């Protein structure tokens, strides 16, 4: 049997304890984050789990003003694309910045990686508890200014 | 192209009229409606009012219900006098007293039951309600 070295649940648990985890490939040296079953660059399974520095640079962003079901109370919010120092990109919420005041000057800004729980009203996205709401293990990656 | 859509079929059922299609090519009846005759595939059909009478062929009592429904209730299939089978609920039997010998083979008339719009459905829900003749 083939087994994940770092499934999403362990990735999220590490993230909640302040650690951004991913892979370094022993074949080509590239980094993969978030994890997948093999290297994002060369598809080798010969990878080791490593802790990332957790620092990135904003490459692009948007402000969501019409939200999906479950995210109504969050509007407006910023979703951004950021590149980690190790190379991979992440999609996350830019937090600590007023969505109504953000400008294109944010592109290129350095951020650190964190997390926030998924809004409790969101459905269909993971394990559902007896109360009908999702269990708190679903998280979103966040970016905050350094 | 449709002579009878699901919406028109249920609007009529709510008014107490069971509609169906009669095929002008092979003579057989199709209900609930389709684009073509269920037997021969012809689109040469006309809308007719069916007798609304049938016989129960099989049933079950649902005791673990889907989201949005309260168990127990009876789901059954009836064969109409004109030939087609319909699925619906039996309206006038206590689910806890439903047994093969007091349900299967019984004559029924077809009415309608209306449910409020639920999640993941575009409209209110309508289903045939079978009433077992006394």
């Amino acid at each position: 049997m083939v087994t994940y070295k770092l499934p999403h649940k362990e990735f999220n648990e590490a993230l909640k304890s302040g650690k951004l985890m991913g892979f370094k490939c022993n074949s080509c040296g590239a980094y993969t984050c978030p994890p997948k079953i093999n290297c994002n660059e060369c598809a080798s399974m010969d990878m080791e789990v490593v802790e990332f520095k957790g620092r990135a640079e904003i490459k692009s962003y948007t402000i969501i003003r019409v939200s999906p079901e479950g995210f109504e109370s969050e509007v407006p919010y910023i979703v951004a694309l950021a590149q980690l120092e190790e190379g991979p990109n992440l999609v996350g919420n830019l937090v600590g910045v007023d969505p109504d005041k953000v400008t294109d000057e944010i592109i290129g800004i350095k951020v650190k990686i964190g997390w926030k729980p998924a809004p409790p009203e969101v459905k269909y996205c993971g394990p559902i508890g007896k109360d009908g709401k999702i269990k708190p293990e679903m998280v979103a990656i966040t970016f905050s200014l350094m | 192209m449709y002579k009878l859509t699901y919406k028109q079929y249920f609007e009529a059922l709510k008014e107490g009229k069971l509609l169906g299609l009669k095929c002008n090519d092979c003579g057989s009846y199709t209900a609930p409606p389709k684009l073509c005759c269920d037997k021969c595939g012809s689109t040469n059909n006309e809308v007719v009012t069916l007798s609304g009478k049938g016989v129960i062929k099989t049933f079950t009592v649902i005791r673990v219900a889907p989201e949005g429904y309260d168990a127990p209730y009876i789901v059954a299939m009836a064969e109409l006098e004109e030939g087609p089978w319909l699925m619906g609920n039996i309206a006038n039997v206590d689910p806890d007293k439903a047994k093969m010998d007091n349900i299967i083979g019984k004559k029924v008339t077809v009415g309608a039951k209306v449910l409020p719009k639920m999640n993941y459905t575009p409209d209110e829900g309508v289903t045939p309600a079978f009433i077992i003749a006394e």
Partner: protein
Amino acid sequence: MRKVCVAGVGMTKFGKSEKSSIEMFAEAAMEAIIGSNIKPSDIQCLYLGNVFGDFEEGQALMAPYAAREIGLSVGTPSLRFEGACASASMAIRDAFVAVAGGFYDVVLAGGTERELAMGTPLATRTFNMATEQYYEGMTGLTFPGVFAILSRLYSKKYGIPLSKLKERMAMVAVKNHKNGAKNPLAQFRKEITVEEVLSGPMIAEPLQLLDCCPFTDGAAAIIITTEEKAKKMVEKPVYILGVGQGSGAPLYRQKDFTLIESRVAAAKTAYAMAGIEPKDIDVAEVHDCFTTAEIVATECLGFFDFGTASEAVEKGETQIGGRIPINPSGGLKSKGHPIGATGAAQAYEIVKQVRGEFVERGTQVEGAKIGLTDTLGGDSGVICNIIYGIKG
């Protein structure tokens, strides 16, 4: 491989419908069957695109119900394909492969979708399911959001000021509404102006309401068959000259997605199979789910150099009568976007274009012989390109 043709095509009016997904598909399918001068019993397999039957109508397992609705026999395999917005194109491409490979002679392919009854919050949530859920879904990313991020990347990369880019994006919407106004099957049949686009409510900055395609109900279908059979069925069979399909990564793994690798790969496969180049394409229906998506698509498909497509829009090169007319049907933007049906509706348009059937409507691309469809599923998780052509 055998030569493969499209015989008949069919499509419902797009927009709000009181009919079920299956009823809409059955109407489009019967139009295609009648247009091919065949009977339902001649069809050997059904390839159906559908995305949200479950959320929209509580209906999974759409394919066999659709097959039996139009009277195909119980021994007819029926397959539902889900590749988000590219579902119908996947179905068409797979049908092509099965006919080319000799497994089937006559197949029905297409798609259906009924979105409007869901309402905007649930529709936005369910559409968002086509992005990756574990590592990006919980940010609340929406599809307008995906293309909003793309717009900023594009503006930055090519040094086009955002205000300039936004004006050109608006011109995409204006062009597609102009075409759609002449299409009786389109959801929106009203011309709009650049000012209207730029004064619309903000959806996901910098995308405004009229940068976005609508939610739509509708269905479309085509009959795919061998060259030999098609010639007997119809006067003007349309050949499927090339197909290509690619698979993309989640957004965060694509890095610079102004250059969509899966689209470049899919288009390359299709061009190579057809033995032609981008310049040989006379007309294209491309995936303009958002105005900026059309700009980026036309570069990935090789119609314009990277970074230059927005300028080409401004110069009118993508208008009917321009260098390469894009979305003469009105595109997703104005014709509408019932996601599971979109690829089949693109095929419907291109088949009719190369047959020269839009002269009266006033949207005929003169002398069009070869046309391309481009359909994107998710944030480029699936890309499907199909090239259609007519002899002579």
